[in-house]
């Protein structure tokens, strides 16, 4: 009898999990499926026919001839450039900083860590307003450079936090051994520590990249048509003449699906990154 009870509760657990998963995943699939339909089928639950037309139009000539900004490759390209560059800078900067904070004893060591972590508490609107005014005065609105620079700030608290925890798990004995053998400190850092930090760097860069890829507030405010990123394109241009659900769904799918597939592969990194430090052992 007890075995049956356990089995039923386990079965119930699986069923409930299935419902929960459906709850979280269904909207995504439903929405992506819209990109494979014709406009007329948008409002039905199940479409009558499927098509790839939306993708072809969007990626080649743009949907509305009046608005050249519906040609999606430009926001796509911008997003890739801006998100990757800023992620690279962020990671580079925080690796050095995390290393310095852990390996050296100096005044303000704790203060700096604390300060960086507390930066995460700041809602970005606080820096957006002054930065917007600064950019407008310097005619830097709608430039890639400015947006990339702004984005480097977003990932720093998170990346610093993760990398610092990670650096702490790498014993310094290895570097000291290398230095005894004649390496300078920097070479030791690059050739000994860095390879060991790879999982942490991977996790941090993925999370930071995702953060920068989907950011809208700064991108929407600081760009107008040159440096437009995907989220801005979706929010502003998709509504150019019509609430074109199929076009929007296609744009969204192009933005989402590669990320989702990527996420599937590196799920372990993402989860470990998110939960790192959450469980203080």
């Amino acid at each position, binding site marked *: 009898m007890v075995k049956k009870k356990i089995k039923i509760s386990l079965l119930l657990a699986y069923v409930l999990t299935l419902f929960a998963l459906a709850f979280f995943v269904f909207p995504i699939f439903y929405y992506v499926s819209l990109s494979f339909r014709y406009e007329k089928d948008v409002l039905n639950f199940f479409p009558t026919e499927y098509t790839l037309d939306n993708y072809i139009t969007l990626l080649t000539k743009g949907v509305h001839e*009046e*608005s*050249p*900004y519906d040609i999606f490759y430009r926001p796509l390209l911008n997003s890739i450039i801006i998100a990757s560059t800023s992620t690279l800078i962020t990671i580079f900067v925080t690796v050095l900083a995390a290393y310095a904070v852990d390996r050296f004893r100096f005044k303000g060591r*704790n203060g700096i*860590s*604390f300060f960086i972590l507390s930066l995460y508490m700041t809602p970005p609107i606080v820096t957006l307003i002054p930065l917007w005014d*600064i950019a*407008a*005065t*310097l*005619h830097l*609105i*709608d430039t890639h450079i400015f947006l990339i620079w702004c984005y480097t700030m977003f990932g720093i608290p998170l990346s610093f936090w993760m990398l610092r925890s990670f650096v702490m798990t790498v014993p310094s004995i290895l570097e000291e051994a290398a230095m005894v053998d004649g390496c300078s400190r920097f070479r030791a850092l690059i050739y000994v520590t860095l390879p060991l930090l790879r999982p942490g760097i991977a996790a941090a860069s993925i999370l930071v990249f995702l953060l920068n890829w989907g950011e809208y507030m700064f991108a929407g*405010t600081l*760009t*107008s*048509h040159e440096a437009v990123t995907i989220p801005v394109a979706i929010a*502003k*241009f998709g*509504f*150019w*003449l*019509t*609430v074109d659900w199929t076009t929007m769904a296609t744009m969204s799918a192009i933005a989402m699906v590669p990320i989702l597939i990527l996420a599937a592969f590196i799920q372990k990194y993402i989860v470990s990154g998110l939960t790192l430090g959450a469980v203080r052992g």
Partner: protein
Amino acid sequence: MSSEPKKVDRRKFIYAGLGAVALVAIGAAAYVAMNPPVVTQTVTTSTTVTGTSTTKPGGSIKILSWQTPIDDMYKKLIQEDFTPKTGITVQYDTVPWGSYIEKNLVSMKGKSEYDLIMNNTEWTMPAWVYSGGLMPLNNRLKQDFKVDDFLPGFLGICAYPPGQKVKPTGYYLNFSDAVFYGVPYWDDAQPLLYRTDLVPEPPKNWDELLSIAQKLTNPDKKFYGYVFQGQPKAGQLYDAWFAVLHGFGADIFDDKLNPAFNTSEGIEGTQFLVDLYLKYKVVPPDTPALDSTATLDYYKGGFVAMIIPWGNSPLGDVPVAKVSKYDIAPVGKRVSARTAGAAFTIPSTASNPDGAWEYIKWALSPQIRAKIVGELGAPVVLKSELAYVKQGSNAWAVAQEVARNDIGVNPAIPNLTEVSDALSVPLNQALIGQISVKEALSQAEQKVKDVMKAAALL
């Protein structure tokens, strides 16, 4: 992380205080470095003689506009005609409407990078005029054009009374002493668009519209007689409401910039609009959330029979286009429509104003306009262009409305966005039945007063 020693607590306050002072100091230094103090320029009646040069200006100009098909055609003609003729190269920046206002207002800061801006007369041009950022164009205009050639309604929008920076009622028709900050380029209005297969005769006034809509509305078939924008942001509900308000005889401001819509006419008009949704239910149930693209979508999709859209929004190639026609909006005490558009304006800090003026002359010359208006169907700006429009088309209806002397115009104030947003909140609440119309208009009046006082305009 190791815990911090408790002795630090008192020091923390000192550090915090020093930090705050340091912050303000940094900010001050930064601000001064970036912004040499800008004094609001007082607008003087301009009698500066800006002679037109007799030699070819050459050089280059930079233009800012929002994207319309007309711009595309102009760009083509620039390459074929303008640059070869005058030797001026043009960098023509077009931006989608959704980003235009912000880009335009941002470019007001500091030295303008543009020589010519197609300034939207409602949402951006007033701020430019108020801050003294536009070059008055009187002498050039009177020299190279005839004031009489223009459709007066629209020229009146570009004209300001001497010495004034704002226009509570939007028009100034005394062209002899007006200061012209712009030259009409593109105008739009709100005609009535209706289904000829369902509506044999377009309604002449609101009562007729209501009775036609009531006959045609069939909620079970999801078909409605009319639709309007109810979305409180981005001036959507404001667009719909202003038109009705104007038609019923009320204005937003009086000439002292006091709110003037909380009158019996204003209440009547607002009540009528709200009743369309709450009482008569002749508009779709999600009207309070619709914007102009959504409402036009409803019409295009065949879900509504009548709509008052912006005239220059094309219907496109949809089945209902074949059975659609444009006409003048319903007329109450005045026609229930508003006109707005874009004017050629030259920033006072432009680097090549002469080149910009050459462009304006060329862009409004008859041969070019023949192509733009005649072939492309752009809105009519000069009286001579009235010959090109077809009866029943949107261009014709727009021209008819603009040619009237009772069409509505938005007040030319620099903070129109703020005023319309403030107004729209209680209006939207009245629309969904949360508060009564009287209550909404009183609240709106107070809010508008607050906003105008805060901007020191009242």
